[in-house]
């Protein structure tokens, strides 16, 4: 339901971001059944109850021994949660549900080929498979507590089985996304010093059976180059008794798991009781050509955090059928396909293939057939499904109560399609902000208690207190309209423990920037630096930004170039837009817009006026551009980035700088001739620029 009220937007707010959207409220039917429907929960997780508030999450688990210290800060920023507590993650995800839910599906696995049967794996069956594979890993693999095992597995049930088998033994698993190359896998094997690789012969993608085992050979070779020898490659087979790869099995190194498992049928492995702070898994992030960065996640803190956020933010009940349409190879899959939902004893759907195979109706067909009522995916997938089949959801009779979006900021118009068409206006949407390093959500809305606002992830989640700092370490106040670096003031149980084998890098990347006192053992002195830019509205909701944008200061109003460009792009004919500042005698600076048109449209005064009007309507009269220039193409780098510096130079009759690196240097002269010719004809030639103004134009677009 949408409110009728006008969004109140301050001039300061529009300086940094899109206009604030209207609120959407959860349906009464959802509130009536929600896990978190009593506002008292905010008090329980308020700062005065930190860190003890997280006992509520930890109490969702079954502990072998309770902890004596909720949060140990003696060695900052290597926080330890639930110290003294002992538990086993595999037991918590499977064994403890057997008494009441033995025959309930833990996973419903949907193979990509529609001709193959869906596989329902009950908690009892999952327990059996985990125990047998754990016995194999312990016996044949000779693995013990603290050893690392690397998986290079696609979206098949064998992946969660392998993860939970390791967790049962206290062995640290490290899954590498199945689509990654053998070389990338090898780098991660070497970094974690795994001596066993678990892989699969093949899997389906886009209708083809992909040869996956071949990558294992590359991975082993890459690890060897970095000084780590893989002793055993254990190969699951996509189709029992058939080998889907052309890569030969290496005698003495490669083994088919289904053949080995014959010796472990019916085995039961006692779950190893692990300290809460023992590492559960490593999750590598890309982002450097140097050593890969393995985020080490703990057993107790992590599991408590994903269980708690799954319960309150995903609103998972044991009787739900939940589908997180992501890959377990990423943190989203670890937290919100495997550990969180299983800890709560729900039924989770796993899908092997690509979203739109064989057609864009596939996800909705799956949801309809399996009775999915909670759906969770990323904006990229949402955009793709919207583009390929905008009306497909209407053809299927599913009903979601709850939908999540994860991984990227979502544009308001895409959000609305997700809400209105995918959710049929019946479901709440939980927009989430978090990172691989965080274990679980950091910014979101509690769906029954906090209204939704398209484009904003919401405030900090329960027990997490975000803050925005500027480069001078000053707090950027909510509602100021200024953007800055979003940080978390406090530790939380899901935070990763360290970068595997690189503790100094952990401190340097995440804590050094805003640490107030390196000698302090008070967590308040160690804010976590997330690395994302954000702006906080007066209502406390955060919008995550890619970076802090260039601004144009018009009569004291700071206008973000992105907002001006975003508004221009709402004009149907406009394909690309770029905003630049021009010197203006009255206002100091004014904005000028450069736009190029979609194929089939011709430049006209009417389109120029439409662009100016769109900016006025969406941002305000103050933002009305001095000129709108329609150009055939923008000057761009070879990577396709618009060079605002160049067009700013043209608009101000200043030096455009070096254009030799442009992909299309020839357009510069065309644009100059067109724009400056018009300006001369209109009498808009600016006075001579001061050295400071010349410098300002020169550095414009520096964030590019």
């Amino acid at each position, binding site marked *: 339901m949408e409110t009728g009220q006008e969004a109140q937007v301050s001039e300061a707010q529009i300086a940094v971001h899109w206009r604030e959207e209207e609120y959407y409220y959860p349906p009464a039917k959802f509130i009536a059944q929600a896990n978190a429907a009593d506002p008292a929960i905010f008090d329980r997780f308020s700062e005065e109850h930190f860190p003890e508030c997280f006992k509520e999450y930890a109490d969702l688990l079954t502990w072998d021994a309770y902890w004596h210290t909720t949060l140990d800060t003696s060695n900052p920023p290597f926080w330890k949660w639930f110290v003294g507590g002992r538990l086993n993650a595999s037991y918590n995800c499977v064994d403890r549900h057997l008494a009441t839910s033995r025959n309930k599906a833990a996973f419903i696995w949907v193979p990509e080929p529609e001709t193959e049967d869906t596989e329902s794996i009950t908690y009892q069956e999952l327990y059996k498979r985990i125990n047998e594979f754990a016995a194999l890993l312990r016996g044949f693999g000779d693995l013990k507590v603290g050893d690392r095992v690397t998986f290079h597995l696609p979206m098949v049930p064998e992946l969660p089985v392998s993860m939970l088998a390791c967790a049962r033994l206290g062995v640290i698993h490290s899954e590498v*996304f199945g*689509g990654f190359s053998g*070389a990338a896998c090898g780098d991660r094997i070497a970094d974690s010093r795994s001596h066993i690789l678990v892989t699969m012969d093949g899997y389906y993608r886009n209708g083809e059976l992909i040869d996956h085992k071949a990558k294992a050979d590359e991975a082993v070779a890459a690890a060897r180059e970095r000084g780590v020898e893989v002793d055993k490659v254990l190969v699951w087979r996509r189709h029992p008794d058939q080998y889907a790869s052309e890569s030969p099995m290496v005698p003495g190194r490669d083994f088919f798991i289904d053949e080995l498992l014959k010796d472990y049928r019916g085995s039961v492995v006692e779950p190893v009781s692990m300290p809460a702070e023992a590492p559960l898994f490593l999750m590598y992030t*890309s982002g450097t050509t140097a050593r890969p960065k393995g985020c080490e996640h703990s057993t107790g803190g992590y599991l408590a955090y994903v269980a708690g956020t799954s319960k309150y933010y995903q609103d998972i009940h044991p009787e739900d059928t939940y589908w997180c349409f992501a890959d377990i190879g*990423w943190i989203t899959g670890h937290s919100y396909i495997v550990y969180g939902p299983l800890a709560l004893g729900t039924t989770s759907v796993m899908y092997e293939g690509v979203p739109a195979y064989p057609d864009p109706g596939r996800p909705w067909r799956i949801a309809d057939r399996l009775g999915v009522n909670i759906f969770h995916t990323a904006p990229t*997938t949402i955009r793709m499904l919207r583009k390929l089949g905008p009306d497909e959801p209407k053809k299927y009779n599913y009903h979601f109560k709850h939908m999540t979006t994860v991984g990227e900021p979502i544009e308001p118009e895409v959000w609305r399609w997700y809400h209105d068409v995918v959710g049929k206006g019946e479901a709440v949407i939980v927009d989430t902000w978090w990172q691989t390093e965080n274990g679980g959500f950091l910014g979101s809305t509690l769906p029954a208690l906090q209204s939704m606002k398209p484009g904003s992830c919401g405030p900090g989640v329960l027990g997490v207190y975000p803050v925005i700092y500027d480069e001078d370490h000053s707090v950027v106040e909510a509602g100021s309209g200024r953007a800055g670096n979003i940080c978390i003031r406090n530790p939380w149980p899901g935070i990763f423990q360290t970068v595997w084998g690189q503790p100094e890098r952990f401190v340097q990347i995440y804590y050094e920037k805003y640490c107030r006192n390196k000698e302090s053992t008070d967590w308040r002195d160690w804010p976590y630096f997330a690395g994302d830019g954000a702006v906080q509205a007066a209502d406390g909701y955060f919008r995550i*930004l890619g970076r802090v944008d260039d601004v144009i200061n018009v009569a004291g109003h700071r206008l973000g170039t992105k907002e001006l460009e975003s508004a221009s792009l709402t004009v149907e004919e406009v394909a690309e837009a770029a905003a630049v500042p021009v010197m203006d005698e009255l206002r100091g600076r004014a904005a000028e817009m450069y736009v190029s048109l979609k*194929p089939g449209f011709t430049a006209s005064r009417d389109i120029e006026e439409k662009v100016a009007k769109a900016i006025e309507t969406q941002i305000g009269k103050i933002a009305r551009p001095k000129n709108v220039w329609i150009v*055939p*193409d923008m000057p761009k780098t070879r990577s396709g980035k618009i060079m605002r510096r160049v067009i700013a130079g043209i608009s101000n009759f200043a030096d455009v700088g070096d254009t030799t690196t442009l992909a299309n240097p020839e357009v510069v002269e065309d644009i100059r001739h067109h724009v400056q010719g018009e300006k001369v004809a209109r009498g808009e030639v600016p006075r001579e620029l001061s050295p400071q103004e010349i410098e300002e134009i020169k550095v414009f677009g520096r964030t590019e």
Partner: protein
Amino acid sequence: MPFGVGHVGSVRETRGAAVEMTQQYLAGELSLLLAQLQAVATDTAGVRDLARLRQEAETMPLLALPSVAVRALELADSVCWDSLTRGDTAAFVRQAAICAELWQFGVCAGLLEEGQPSNEVGAS
């Protein structure tokens, strides 16, 4: 469709690329698509370039993904032209299908903006 348009798109700047969040999956999907293209590329240089680009997708900061996506489409375009020039229509069909998938993904992931052919400079 990038193939045959003459230029392959530009980086979309309005969302995404610099945000850390949990965007590792964008690198993963891009790597996967490059692997598919590598598998159907017929010339050695193309295969080598695609392998190099794939390594970049897997190791470079997420901020570099738009640039990788643009170069991937450029390579895809050249791989397609190469097959057409040789009259290898079977290879071309396979390559063009992956090229389309790559483009679709790039646009939906916010890594690419649809390119547009040249317009006349109009009055303004």
